[in-house]
């Protein structure tokens, strides 16, 4: 062989090797999984990598919504970085900074209040997002404002349509300047972590998302993912239990913020409770009893056997669209809502309209259902407890989280010694307070 032939042979072999490399690379490309959501008609390849991920909710079927409509990003890219570039709210499109773009729109969650589509407005104006009451109290107590009226929120917020006596028109963002009293500045810097747009404390019991997902995506206390998305790590905390939205929200989810400790205004610090988890020999029921409320709290049996969402309504938790100065302006459910009084039965309503919100709400929850003709609890604010039904003789409650059936005891006809004007739960606790079986 002369020099050219040798050169040709060597280079030919080299080229062959590289071409083989290209074939190997092609053979290792993932098999593309394409989804064409009905609402967008644009193909998405997200499931190529996220094959197995849970459908976000029955109300948002994957075939209809796909991924990009809510999450954004580049649904046709199969490079992680490019595919995820421009995703709304990072991993969480419901973060309040992104929620209008991801979940909003007049036909979705920022529509008219009459259609029950004003979820985003309600959440943005709710005390869960504004933290207005706590800010007003602390700012007033330390001399930052002249009275305890709510003037400030975590974010600036306005409400042009005030429907209640306690509704405020607007809140300014709470940003105390250098002239503000020292404790107010410390409070602003250290303590404003308790609202749905704040990042969670990154440790067991506290893991949660922000925005809508703060409540509707359930996090385990250890913050570990237990679903089937192959790309989500199973051993790194800080992920929801599964990629699912739910209205069957267990008390543990509420407790990622509530009942986890106390703010000390003297130290301007959050003091975590230190009694968790309870002794390991306790039963699940006993653990729940310890876990539910802080040791100092006074509560009745139903208040820890049931879940928070069995009593606290959509309107109470997500707000009613008005800006309020604190939770006292928005919480209205009392023991009597379900138990009635000595002289009155609980207020009941029979569902006749097939479009009734009680029916729609029941379709979002896997554990109970409401049909036309059902007689259910109605509240003073016009909400319904579709999971508490009157069967003609008894009042039966189906647990929204676990589906368990309870008979609701009625005050009427009992030996209760309540006074007609003493209906708040504090009065009920005087007799019905529950003693912890185990006090660690």
């Amino acid at each position, binding site marked *: 062989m002369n020099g050219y032939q040798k050169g040709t042979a060597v280079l030919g072999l080299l080229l062959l090797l590289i071409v083989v490399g290209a074939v190997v690379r092609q053979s290792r490309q993932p098999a593309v999984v394409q989804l064409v959501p009905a609402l967008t008609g644009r193909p998405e390849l997200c499931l190529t990598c996220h094959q197995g991920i849970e459908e976000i909710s029955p109300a948002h079927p994957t075939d209809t919504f796909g991924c990009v409509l809510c999450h954004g990003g*580049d649904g*046709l*890219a199969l490079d992680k970085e490019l595919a995820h570039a421009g995703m709304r709210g990072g991993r969480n499109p419901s973060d309040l900074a992104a929620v209008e773009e991801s979940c909003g729109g007049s036909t979705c969650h920022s529509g008219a209040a009459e259609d029950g589509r004003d979820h985003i407005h309600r959440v943005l104006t709710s005390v869960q997002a504004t933290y207005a009451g706590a800010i007003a109290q602390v700012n007033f107590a330390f001399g930052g404002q002249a009275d305890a009226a709510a003037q400030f929120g975590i974010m600036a917020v306005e409400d042009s349509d005030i429907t209640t006596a306690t509704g405020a028109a607007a809140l300014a963002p709470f940003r105390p300047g250098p002239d503000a009293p020292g404790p107010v500045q410390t409070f602003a810097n250290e303590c404003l972590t308790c609202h749905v747009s704040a990042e969670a404390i990154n440790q067991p019991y506290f893991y949660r998302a922000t925005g809508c997902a703060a409540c509707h995506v359930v996090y385990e206390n250890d913050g570990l993912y237990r679903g089937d998305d192959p790309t989500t790590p199973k051993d790194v905390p800080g992920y929801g239990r599964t990629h699912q939205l739910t209205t069957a929200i267990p008390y543990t989810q509420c407790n990622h913020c509530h009942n986890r400790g106390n703010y000390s205004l003297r130290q301007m610090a959050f003091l975590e409770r230190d009694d968790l988890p309870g002794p390991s020999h306790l039963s699940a029921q006993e653990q729940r009893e310890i876990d539910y409320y802080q040791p100092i709290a006074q509560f009745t049996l139903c208040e820890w056997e049931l879940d928070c969402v069995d009593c606290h309504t959509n309107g109470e938790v997500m707000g009613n669209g008005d800006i309020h100065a604190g939770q006292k302006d928005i919480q209205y459910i009392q023991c009597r809502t379900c138990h009635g009084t000595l002289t009155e039965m609980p207020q009941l309503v029979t569902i006749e309209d097939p479009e009734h919100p009680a029916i729609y709400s029941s379709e979002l929850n896997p554990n109970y259902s409401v049909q036309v003709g059902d007689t259910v609890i109605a509240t003073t604010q016009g909400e319904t407890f579709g999971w508490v039904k009157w069967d003609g003789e008894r009042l039966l409650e189906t647990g929204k989280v676990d589906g368990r059936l309870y008979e609701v005891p009625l005050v009427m006809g009992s030996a209760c010694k309540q006074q007609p004007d003493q209906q708040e739960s504090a009065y009920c606790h005087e007799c019905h307070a529950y003693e912890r079986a185990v006090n660690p």
Partner: protein
Amino acid sequence: MARPNFFEHLHPPTIPAREARFTYTFGLGGMSLFLFLSLIVTGVLLMFVYVPTAVSAADSIRTITYVAPFGWLLRNLHYWAAVLLLLTSAFHLLRVVFSGSYKPPRRFNWLLGLALLLLSLLLSFSGYVLRWDVDTFGALTVGTNIVRQFPLLGGWFYGLLVGGPDISVVTVVRFYTWHTLGLSVPVLLLMGWHAFRVRRDGGISHQSLVVSPQSPARPPRISRRELVQREGVAMLALLSVLFALSLFFNAPLAAPVDPLAGPSAASTDIAAPWFFLWIQALLRRLPPLWAGILIPLGVTAVLALLPWTLDRKTEGTAVWFHPAGRWAQVVVIALTIGIIALTLLELWR
């Protein structure tokens, strides 16, 4: 001896041995031709999948990159062949200047070569725009706005280029047609003419023969068979480089332009493709008329007129850095350093 084959027939029967050495031409002209042919092959294959509409362009690029079998390889080959083509063309120009090969009678071919380089730049730019993502959309906006700065005719040029008073859904078709036909066909024709002129101008630039009765020896020559063999080895090597680059380094891609957000969605970061970063660096410092039009046109004019102004002598043809071409060499080195410096400045800003 076997009759010469087709490829051998494309060459003169013999060529001077000294100038046929790799270390004289570095094979840059031949490599440029080969890379352009590769671009046509890969480009035609890409045309089977690419959809030149504002709505689907970015999607079809993703289909090519992620879904079509070996689509990634095809796009990478097209990208790297274009990058290498600009490099080999630019180095070809430098070789011609530094070896005095632009001198008469090769002055016209110098112009053809320069036109090929400019068209290759425009081809690369139009190809870059066809990605239709936030990066290239930024470049499109900046690039076409430069055209607007052109005295008197700017608005008309702009309308012709983007297909209307503003960048719109028509623009992608305009760029697609320029890229696949309007620019590439002229390049192909000019390449043929360029090669023809090499032959017509007396073959590859070489030192003039001094044949006297005292020294009748002619400089040694090699046969075209040997030349074609050398070219074959060089092409194989180049192909290996091209495939290796394509295997290990992906052509860039950015987030698609949100059709609803329009131009505001364009990336505010580096917008120009790498070969125009030097113009972008100028744009940051000078008025757009100067940075975008007058200076680039000036550079082109200096280069074009080089054999008629800076060095009109025939002396020193095919001699590296001959003193006769000193001014031409200095000016081209200065321009090269300037362009590289501005590019680095923009890259590391």
